[in-house]
């Protein structure tokens, strides 16, 4: 009896182990499938996006790879220069023989890449470059081109909806008078023109003053801030760069300018911005915030895995976008079961991916492009050093701090 029992136990153990082995993903083997990513690696956006891409690759390969083969992302640095970005595409296509192109950040760099991308016409899923006027129309007819970042006009449309919804929820919030402080380069002036066109259509008054960004050798904001102070706006919004963020707040404090709502709209924030007491109550726009991990399981998974892997926190939304970027292409290939380009493109069009930026990513048409991913950014706010989500209300992680706290009460 005893012997029989031992034999049966062994059989069950072997069976159990066999079932477990069968259920576990087979390790990826064979020739790797390569994606070519182009990013500005010296910039925090590119650095963290590239790390997030490597994280996605690690997870995908641990789960069996792509078509059972290991996935490799070959990363090239565009150094924020158009010519380097274009050369990187050439190198990835001819030397590395990648299957698809991913990555991206700057619109200027991407403009220079468009002719090269057209030459190879490989599946391309881009996470940067929001300037619709120079990217969207030229790529309108390219079925292989997918753009995940919301276009500039989609972002502004989102903000209008967002502010209106926030004001409807909280009657204290006033949006009647806006003052825009904008850097005098293309980024700021184009943005300001957009506000001048769209804001009056909402019945909102808008005025503005330019300043020279610290990135261009400026860094003196007091003249623009004094004009804003005299205007007595309900909301002050500045369009500049990360280098302007803290000096501008210091100078606003210096002249005693604390409007009811203070919004910053740089493409990225300094890594230590949240640590400054001046950051409290500053609103901002972004696709993602660390606090999303409180309301989104995918975001929490991404946050934990990224922190564990790199011993640093993702500080820019290009990190979850980079992660999404790899998964979207890998999922499409796995779904099709082959590298047939037409079928993969069809699968990409059919994407439904629960992304760490919160929303489920689907592909829809934008004004000119057939394959557009995300369509809006979020309205966020710095609270106790953390970016909280105010809008969309589905992802809200905190109530708005309104009005903007006085400088001497923080």
């Amino acid at each position, binding site marked *: 009896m005893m012997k029989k029992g031992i034999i049966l136990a062994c059989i069950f153990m072997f069976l159990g182990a066999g079932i477990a082995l069968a259920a576990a993903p087979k390790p990826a083997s064979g020739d790797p499938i390569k994606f070519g990513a182009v990013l500005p690696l010296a910039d925090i956006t590119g650095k963290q996006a590239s790390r997030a891409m490597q994280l996605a690759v690690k997870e995908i390969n641990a789960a069996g790879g792509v078509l059972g083969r290991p996935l490799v992302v070959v990363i090239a640095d565009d150094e924020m220069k158009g010519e380097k970005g274009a050369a990187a595409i050439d190198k990835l296509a001819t030397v590395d023989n990648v299957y698809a192109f991913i990555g991206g950040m700057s619109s200027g760099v991407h403009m220079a890449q468009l002719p090269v991308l057209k030459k190879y016409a490989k599946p391309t899923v881009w996470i940067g470059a929001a300037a619709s006027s120079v990217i969207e129309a030229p790529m309108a007819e390219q079925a292989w081109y997918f753009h995940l970042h919301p276009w500039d006009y989609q972002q502004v449309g989102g903000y209008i909806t967002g502010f209106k919804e926030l004001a409807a929820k909280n009657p204290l919030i006033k949006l009647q008078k806006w003052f825009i402080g904008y850097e005098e380069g293309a980024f700021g002036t184009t943005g300001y023109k957009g506000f001048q066109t769209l804001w009056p259509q909402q019945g909102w008054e808008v005025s503005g003053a*330019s300043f*020279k960004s610290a990135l*261009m*050798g400026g860094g*003196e904001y007091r003249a623009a801030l*004094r004009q804003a102070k005299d205007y007595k706006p309900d909301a002050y919004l500045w369009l500049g760069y*990360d280098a302007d963020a*803290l000096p501008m707040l210091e100078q606003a404090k*210096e002249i005693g300018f604390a409007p009811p709502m203070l919004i910053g709209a740089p493409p990225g924030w300094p890594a230590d911005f949240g640590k400054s007491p001046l950051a409290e109550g500053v609103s901002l726009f972004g696709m993602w915030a660390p606090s999303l991990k409180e309301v989104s399981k995918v975001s929490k998974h991404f946050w934990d895995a990224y922190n564990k892997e790199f011993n640093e926190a993702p500080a820019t939304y290009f990190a979850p976008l980079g992660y999404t970027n790899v998964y979207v292409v890998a999922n499409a290939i796995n779904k099709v079961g082959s590298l047939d380009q037409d079928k993969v493109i069809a699968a990409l069009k059919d994407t439904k991916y629960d992304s760490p930026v919160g929303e489920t990513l689907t592909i829809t048409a934008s004004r000119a492009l057939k394959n557009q991913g995300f369509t809006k950014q979020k309205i966020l706010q710095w609270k106790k050093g953390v970016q909280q989500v105010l809008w969309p209300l589905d992802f809200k992680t905190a109530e708005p701090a309104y009005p903007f706290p006085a400088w001497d009460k923080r």
Partner: protein
Amino acid sequence: MQIVSKLRERRYQAILGAIIMAVIILAVKPEVLLEGIQRSSLYAVIALPMALILGIVGIINLAHGDFMMLGSYMAYWFAVKSGLDPLLAMIPAMLAFFLIGILTFYALIKPVLGSQELNQLLLTFGLGLVLEEAANLSFTSAPLKLSVPYVSASLTIGDLTFGTFEFVYVLAAMLVFYIISLFLKKTRIGRAARAVGQNPKGAKLVGIDVNKTYLIIFSLSIAIIGTIGVLFAMRHSVFPVMGAPYTMKSFCLIAMAGIGNITGILWYSALLGVSESIITAIPGAAGWADLVFFALIVGAILIRSYQQRVK
């Protein structure tokens, strides 16, 4: 009578014009004058050490702003690592940049002292690029900013609220100007440096060690600009290419004032800083500030050329 006769001199006419202008601005928009003076002082204190090198060593140091950038990174690193007030970083910065100046002189400047000006220009331009790329690789291009509460300190008098921290730049400009003037006039090395600046061959003939003088002046100037980098970092964001625009502005100021004219740098800094402040305070005109800045430079250089031709 004496006053009237003095007013016939162009120098005193300029001073009187400046005073009248200042009084008018002070009455209409006092903050414009105060902020203009603060800005002028920043321009002056950055330009003075560059002028010293150009005036005596005879080299246009196009890496000037990049040494300031290194000083700013040093201040950031010092404050973050030690937890101490970044102002304290000025002392180690001065010593460190004096040494950096010595190394740079022996490694790069001395070998090109006798060569063509274009070679010297390209060398310092290249050095600037190397320093920027080194900072980029070490710290990335992401801007860093020190959080120092007192840099946003302000004073309110009646309806006027203005920042007080930037008066540090006024003090620094006056101090650097005074120290340089004193050094050049009252010390043996300073007098030797003036002689070398005016006529290096003659100075050598009378027994002055020209190379040693160059070394001291170059290292002293680098020590000053590195230390100014500490003050700059307290108020501004720090990133690899932050210094380049200030190299250009400093060079323009020196061109306006004339080589060797450090008093002129103070005056022209005041002219440019206050003009900029006035332009940016006019609604819708801020974008013209650079245009006015360079128009004033072109104008000043043209007038001086004309005066020299007439003489």
